[in-house]
């Protein structure tokens, strides 16, 4: 039995049926779209290569929880990597595994007119469009998505540096 329901819910239980060997739908386009959009709300113009770094961060639940924890104050990506290397040990593999999803999510956002690509090739959030989901409807998105939305400004802060530095620190193999 295949499961086609796209879920943004935080669920450890079987999000795909026991007997399915198909693509896991835990990290799906809905999560992708929401992650990218809400991080870009706080970081309105960014290059596509920087945007590729968002999903490997937002799909990592432990990282998102850590950023949301009121006790933590992260001063930058380097410091976070030093403090919590276990969040980044397989960043390279996650990056490539989610690359397709990142691109699909960007394309969906463009089609939805929520972001656009300008002449410099940068992604630009479309300020004319309304904020995705009014606050009252948000709880419908599910816990996982809400956590990501809450962490989106912290994630945006992590990505402030130049792309070369980020890719180097995160050890993405190009």
């Amino acid at each position, binding site marked *: 039995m295949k499961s086609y329901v796209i879920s943004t819910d935080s669920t*450890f239980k*079987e*999000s*795909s049926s*026991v*007997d399915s*060997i198909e*693509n*896991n739908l*835990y*990290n799906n386009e809905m999560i992708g779209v929401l992650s990218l959009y809400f991080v870009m709300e706080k970081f309105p113009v960014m290059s596509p290569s920087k945007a590729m770094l968002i999903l490997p961060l937002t*799909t*990592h*639940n*432990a990282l998102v929880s850590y950023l949301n924890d009121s006790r933590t104050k992260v001063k930058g990506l*380097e410091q976070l*990597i*030093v403090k*919590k*290397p*276990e969040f*980044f*040990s*397989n*960043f390279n*593999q*996650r990056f*490539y*595994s*989610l690359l397709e999803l990142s691109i699909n999510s960007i394309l969906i956002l463009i089609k939805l007119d929520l972001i656009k690509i300008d002449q410099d090739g940068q992604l630009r959030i479309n300020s004319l469009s309304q904020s995705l989901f009014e606050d009252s409807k948000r709880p419908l998105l599910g816990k996982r998505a809400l956590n990501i939305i809450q962490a989106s400004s912290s994630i945006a802060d992590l990505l402030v540096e130049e792309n070369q530095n980020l890719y*180097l*620190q995160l*050890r993405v193999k190009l």
Partner: protein
Amino acid sequence: MVLLRYVQSSRIIPKTYYHYLDGVSRLLTKVDKSVQEQTAAETKSIGFDYQYYYFLYKMIQLETGQSIGYEVKDDVHIDKENGKLILIQLKHSIDTKANLTEKDGDLWKTISNWIKIINDKTQNRSNLANQVNYIKNTTFLLVTNKAETSTNKFIQLIRNFKNGTKKLSEIKDHLTQISTPAPGKDPSVVDSYISLLLAQNDDWLKAFIKNIDFLMSKDSLIDAIKTKIKEKNVIESRIDDVYESIDSNLRSLIYETVKSGKKVTISFDLYYKKFTKFYEMGGRRKKLIIRSHTPKKPVPVDHLEYTSIKQLVETEIIDKRDYDFYDELIRIFTDKLLMHNNEQRWLQDGEITDDELKEFNKLTIRKWKQVFDRIHASLKQELRRKELKDVDKDQLNALALNCYHDVLGIQLTLDETDLEVELSNGKFYLLSNQPVIGWVYDWQERYKKL
């Protein structure tokens, strides 16, 4: 005390054991020292010493196409890609205020060693042309923790010769002068070394002096090593770990190499292959966390509808007449659920990626196939002359039984973590449920949905 005089003299302290001197020297007498000196000089003991750390220091800076040797062509040598060679002599003094004077014993012993190497008949360098050719392709480097001093005119002259402000004859004159003993005195050992140098041909000397180099005040090697590690973008908190890993592994490598009678030569490729992993991003738990607590579920009422169970029951691998039939069912469903839940958890936590899981599935199926093909090999041959429907059912079931039990003995590995028996078995049950694997020869025709 005799000992203090010994230590403070400018005699070469054999570098293989200077570390003993620090703590133990106060207890040694001159006699003991000689014996130790003897044995230490003869053993190629690999210890914590200056030469070794310099070797490590240069090894982590190897470039593609280069190799580095330890006590092969010299104390340390580096072969460069363009065929050029660097011979390195290490001279350490525990006297921290030691200067490299121009009649320093270390300096001249080193030069005399180099002369011997250059003029080595056994290396086909008995004639001048070959010697000069060898010199031109080699850099002769003396590395020492002794300090430079302005009273060392020899080194000054060498520098000046290199930049063209002094001629060879001036160097030769100066050397002749300092090596001539005072009237009535015999030439010292150093004097004889200087004479040996002066005895070489002018072309030889010009080439040699051009290619000789000194690295003085080179100390705190370990700090220098750690700085190099940092320059490879290793974060501060991990530098010590990386250093310790490289250090201990290099020492083991050298030990094993020497033990098996081989020379210690490390190419860039070998270095890259063996040591890259120590630089990798760390802090990683080596193993995946296996969660063995899984909510208990009763065996499903419709268990006979599950393909994995059908495959077993229809070939009589398990049967309701068995005394432990229900226990077996419980075990099968528990293992299956355990593996599935762990897999999902790892995926959702980002411990493994989809791609890694796909690879794992492929590999697992390969392992099953090896067993399946082996068990059914004879049958496959028979079926070239026979029809499957004519094969005895009991024979088919017996083969399926063997296949099943052999496969259950396979241990799987995911992301460097060994999956013990319940998880490995669970994985095979999961796969046999889809099904992408089976036990009986014609499992695909019987169970695979189109």
